[in-house]
């Protein structure tokens, strides 16, 4: 029986909460734990995984979907990160502009990527149809929130759609840019309480990533946090989250 990778979608509703950075760092942390990882840049409108990493894609996603290029030919190998990237940069427009059939086509392409144990979907900001569908179709959804009220309400909006589309699914909350671990827990509890009361959904905590200046430094240098500052607080937090995800995947 062919291997079917685990699809982990990363969403936030609001932009600017560190979603793409987290997806890249998580991809490396998961790859370091052993299984092959593919990172899909699902923020098609503003595809920037390749920009953040200083990579130059050779093929467009559209070419893969039309069958002119195979998935293996289209992916980029990150030299230091040990994971593969499927760029979303393309002439094919944003996920919202994609017709539902193309969204399904992308999903089945990723589900069939049997060379990988894990496929991470870095979904764009906003709540467009394509984003919503991919969040609901993933095996696990990580919703990123920060302590800002706007981020909380946008993350809540993601959970609300998810509760409607995939009530029995596995959705977890991740707090990024937390000033302290305790403050991150409070952010989680606030969001959780809203989900329990308004949606009757009780999402577990995936983890808390503390605010760390070295994250900004790594992004500015187009390099990976776990390569540039492997022992900093944020790196330890992401590694702990990767461990938690692997553990529950095995269970």
């Amino acid at each position: 029986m062919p291997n079917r990778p685990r699809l982990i979608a990363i969403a936030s509703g609001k932009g600017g909460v560190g979603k793409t950075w987290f997806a890249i760092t998580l991809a490396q942390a998961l790859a370091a734990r052993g299984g092959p990882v593919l990172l899909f840049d699902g923020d098609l409108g503003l595809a920037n995984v390749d920009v953040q990493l200083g990579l130059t894609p050779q093929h467009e996603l559209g070419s893969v979907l039309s069958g002119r290029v195979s998935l293996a030919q289209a992916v980029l190998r990150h030299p230091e990160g040990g994971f593969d990237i499927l760029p979303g940069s393309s002439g094919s427009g944003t996920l919202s502009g994609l017709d539902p059939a193309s969204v399904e086509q992308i999903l089945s392409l990723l589900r069939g990527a049997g060379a990988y144990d894990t496929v991470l979907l870095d979904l764009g900001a906003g709540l467009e149809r394509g984003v919503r569908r991919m969040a609901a179709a993933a095996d696990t959804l990580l919703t990123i929130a920060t302590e800002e009220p706007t981020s909380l309400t946008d993350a809540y909006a993601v959970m609300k759609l998810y509760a409607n589309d995939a009530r029995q699914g596995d959705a977890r909350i991740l707090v990024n840019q937390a000033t302290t671990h305790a403050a991150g827990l409070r952010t989680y509890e606030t969001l959780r309480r809203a989900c329990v009361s308004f949606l009757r959904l009780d999402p577990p905590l995936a983890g808390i990533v503390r605010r760390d200046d070295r994250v900004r430094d790594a992004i500015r240098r187009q390099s990976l946090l776990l390569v540039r500052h492997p022992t900093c607080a944020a790196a330890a937090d992401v590694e702990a989250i990767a461990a938690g995800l692997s553990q529950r995947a095995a269970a």
Partner: protein
Amino acid sequence: MRLRLFRAPNMAEAMARVRAELGDDALILGTRPVQEGVEITAALESAASVAPAARPPVVPDPRRADLLAFHAVPETLRPALADGPLDQALRRALPFHRLALTGDARPLLLVGTPGAGKTLTVARLATRLVLAGCAPMVITADAKRAGATEQLAAFTRLLGLTLTVASHPVTVGRALARRPPGAPVLIDCPGTDAFDPTQMEELRALAAAADGTVALVLPAGLQVEEAADLAQAHAANGAEMLVATRLDLARRFGGLLAAAAAASLPLAEAGIGPGAADGLVPLTPEELARRMEARLAPSAAAAGDVADRLPRPAPTAAPRHHGPPPRREVDTHPTAAPTSHPMPPPASWQAAAMPDPRAPLHAGQAASVRPRPTPMPAPRARQDVRHAE
């Protein structure tokens, strides 16, 4: 969801601002101490529903029939609750009512069988009003039961309220003539036998003298026909809504649903725990659905309250007959021996959840508490209890 942060020197003021700006539906998501006092994060969810998902869903849930059977929901109600989200089905099938306790509202009389939770409900409503910055007038009309006045006085004293004792229609009328402007009125009525014409006549006279709204306090977990009869008898004597108690302890809610449906009494409030401040919540279709479903959930579900932490037997092992209330499986009320009668438990159960009137009050109140010699002294007149008769 609208989300707002409120900062104020103290909790009562912050809560008042939350209510003023977001209304009574606001949900408190979190509180934390800050330099200026306290910060409350509150939210309000709009009723607007989510657009349908891209994928066609809503397959009738085969477990719904099991759920309705477990709760012994009357056959007449089952078709209406058979499919769709349970909260929406409940909203369609049963009346719900939002209790409005405003300063110009008619007095609210809490009636019901002895031990139903009337006194505790009055205490909780009074606590809610005080927290909202609106001190109510509290009257007890229960002069019969030993200790009834003292039980309620223990609460009103903590809240800084005067408890008025008035058990006769005439004295109730006289007491209400002194109602402070803008104060909601709560009246704790004596426990009654709904099938005794004399007792019900007295209750009607009381309600007429107060020109009040009558709410029936009904414990969840009663047998279906029993609850329906009780609600119908009270509806015939002027009850206009239901306050359900013991939702945390009862396991089967068929009796409650039957009572609301048979007597067309809207469900207003629900007792969900022993606390005075958080033990009573508005009973919404969502709240009821969540609690019904939690009873059959395989693991501790959403809410994290006492009810949901109760170990529960596997659904297959659950008895299907309408039996006595189940044994409580957590020892939150050590004095409450599980009983075998289907009617409300003895007064000791309530007393367990009540503050001991002899216990020291919190620091702010300490000045009014004098050490008492042992054994118990003879009762003496208190300033915080006013006898109107």
